């Protein structure tokens, strides 16, 4: 009997990677992967706890899964599961709660369950880098985990408590993982982790690692995902000239006010951030910077907020992931005075979203008349191909005879759609 399994991932790319790896593992074992809204024998919810909203969504998805099929195996894992394990274990609708450290061994847990052997989390193998290379996940891009955990202890952040101490994956494993996924046919790899800029092992730092990855032979491109503005310098700036390295960084600014950055215990100033942006844009003027921007951190005044808006305009972020500060138990900011009322946080986030939309449109529009090398993700029944260009801009175009999913096409950008999240329109 073929068993059906459904996955739901909340939060960051690292969670996406870990889900994709599990998908790959279950698929190889003969499971049928179905949509989360469908009836399945197993539901896996990979949760997030970075904000109150993430907790809420994680709970909603867990409840949704429990309602789909009463006797299904429901596994709740990820950061909320790690943070609230004892609480979740009391809920009868959840079959297993698995923390981040044991997430890599969920297949063993589920497989044993169906063989009639009930094992506890403690019997699973704890290995944060023990995820299988993704042979066929849920995405065209293959995520490569290079690092886990964080020692920065930003005052607002729960991540060090749920992802543990910073640890870097050895180069040998990373190389093998990349070579394997290239062999599977992937054309784009995304470097991921909790705080990848702090990669450091065997005398190699993050810049050294990227240089080595770019030296791996093959027709593929490399995208660096979310990174903190720290831990890299001239070498990385120069590497952005490499044809395999996508000109895009999700560089997390969090605030445009130095005072708030200090209270957040961030390790850079707005001026440091400016220097990084300017150094890269002086080499690649249309470089794509996206960011995270928090509103309503304790003590954030209207003036501080205006500084954040000014920074967003100045740096021309093409995408801003904005979120309202929410108290995370056990963090330093929990005990800070001057907590901001929810109403003000909401008002500020609306203003950021409006600005973000304007900036996104401006940035994408600037590609009209230029070319992008698009990795095709799908071709619809009208022959319209869509995918992302090297600058991580979405592009649609009429496919040609040679256009294939998971293949590159050089596309001339001729226009842009309307709307909040417009795709660029192009032609071969």
């Amino acid at each position: 009997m073929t068993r059906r399994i459904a996955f739901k991932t909340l939060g960051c790319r690292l969670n996406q990677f870990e889900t994709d790896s599990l998908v790959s593992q279950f698929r190889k074992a003969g499971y049928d992967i179905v949509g989360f809204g469908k009836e399945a024998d197993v539901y896996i919810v990979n949760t997030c706890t970075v904000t109150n909203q993430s907790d809420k969504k994680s709970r909603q998805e867990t409840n949704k899964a429990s309602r789909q099929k009463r006797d299904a195996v429901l596994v709740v894992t990820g950061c909320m599961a790690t943070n609230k394990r004892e609480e979740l274990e009391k809920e009868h609708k959840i079959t297993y709660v698995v923390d981040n450290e044991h997430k890599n061994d969920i297949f063993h847990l589920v497989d044993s369950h169906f063989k009639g052997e009930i094992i506890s989390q403690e019997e699973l193998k704890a290995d944060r880098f023990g995820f299988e290379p993704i042979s066929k996940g849920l995405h065209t891009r293959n995520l490569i985990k290079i690092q886990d955990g964080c020692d920065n202890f930003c005052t607002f952040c729960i991540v060090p408590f749920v992802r543990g101490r910073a640890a870097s994956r050895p180069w040998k494993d990373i190389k093998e993982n990349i070579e394997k996924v290239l062999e599977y046919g992937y054309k784009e790899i995304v470097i991921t982790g909790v705080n990848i800029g702090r990669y450091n092992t065997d005398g190699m730092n993050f810049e050294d690692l990227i240089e080595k990855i770019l030296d791996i032979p093959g027709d593929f491109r490399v995208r660096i995902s979310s990174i903190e503005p720290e831990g890299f310098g001239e070498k990385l700036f120069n590497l952005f000239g490499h044809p395999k390295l996508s000109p895009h960084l999700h560089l997390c600014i969090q605030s445009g006010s130095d005072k708030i950055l200090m209270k957040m215990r961030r390790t850079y100033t707005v001026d440091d951030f400016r220097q990084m942006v300017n150094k890269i844009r002086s080499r690649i003027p249309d470089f794509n910077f996206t960011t995270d921007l928090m509103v309503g951190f304790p003590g954030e005044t209207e003036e501080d907020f205006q500084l954040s808006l000014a920074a967003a305009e100045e740096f021309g972020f093409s995408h801003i992931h904005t979120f309202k500060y929410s108290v995370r138990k056990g963090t330093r900011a929990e005990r800070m005075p001057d907590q901001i009322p929810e109403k003000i946080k909401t008002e500020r986030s609306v203003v950021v979203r409006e600005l973000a939309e304007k900036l996104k449109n401006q940035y994408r529009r600037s590609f009209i008349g230029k070319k992008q090398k698009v990795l095709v993700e799908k071709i619809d029944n009208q022959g319209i191909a869509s995918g992302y260009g090297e600058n991580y801009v979405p592009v649609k175009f009429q496919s040609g005879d040679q256009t294939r999913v998971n293949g590159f096409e050089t596309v001339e950008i001729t226009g842009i759609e309307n709307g909040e999240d417009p795709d660029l329109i192009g032609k071969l």
Partner: protein
Amino acid sequence: MNIRGNIHKVVNIRDLTESTYVLRMEKKGLKFVAGQNLNIGIAGDTERRDYSIYSAENDDYLEILVKEVKDGLVSKRLRKLKAGEELDVDGPFGFFTIKEESRQAGKFLFIASGSGIAPFHSFARSYQKLDFKLIHGIRHSNEAYEREHYPEGQYVSCVTGDNNGDFKGRVTEYLRLNPPDNNTLCYLCGNVNMIYDAFDILKEKGLPSENLFAEVYF
């Protein structure tokens, strides 16, 4: 995967002022780099706080400098501990450290407010040949915590509440009158407002931002 550390026994507590003390505990082989901090709580308790390490890298014990916080849940209770009682210690954490190459050739200005002097004490005791000057902002001159531990002439107290300091006024006023050379590496530790104001002054005086390093205390 909640972060929890190892058990270290209290060795002794050395009172410096009515509200400030040095807590010495077993080292148990814990290796750290001067400037890093530890996450500490009383064993078995859920409340924990971060403290910069006050002792030197090669001391055979660990020390932290603690200023009692009004209504604080940890600082007041730590002071009541007796020798042999247990602490839950995790770490070291943090990146407020000095690179080895800078240590050899660099010229340093350490700027502290209150108990923010702790990492500088560790720097000074760990790296005996370090070329540094330490300016310490305090309210009263009796808060010049163990100033005799620093080489003669390298510690300057900036006192606002009495006339017995080396300088009468805030560290920021001292900095305006005595700006460092532009090649000085400036390390700042203490409350956020002092650091923020000092950053502005140092930048106005032409120090590049790559020469400024900060550790904020809350």
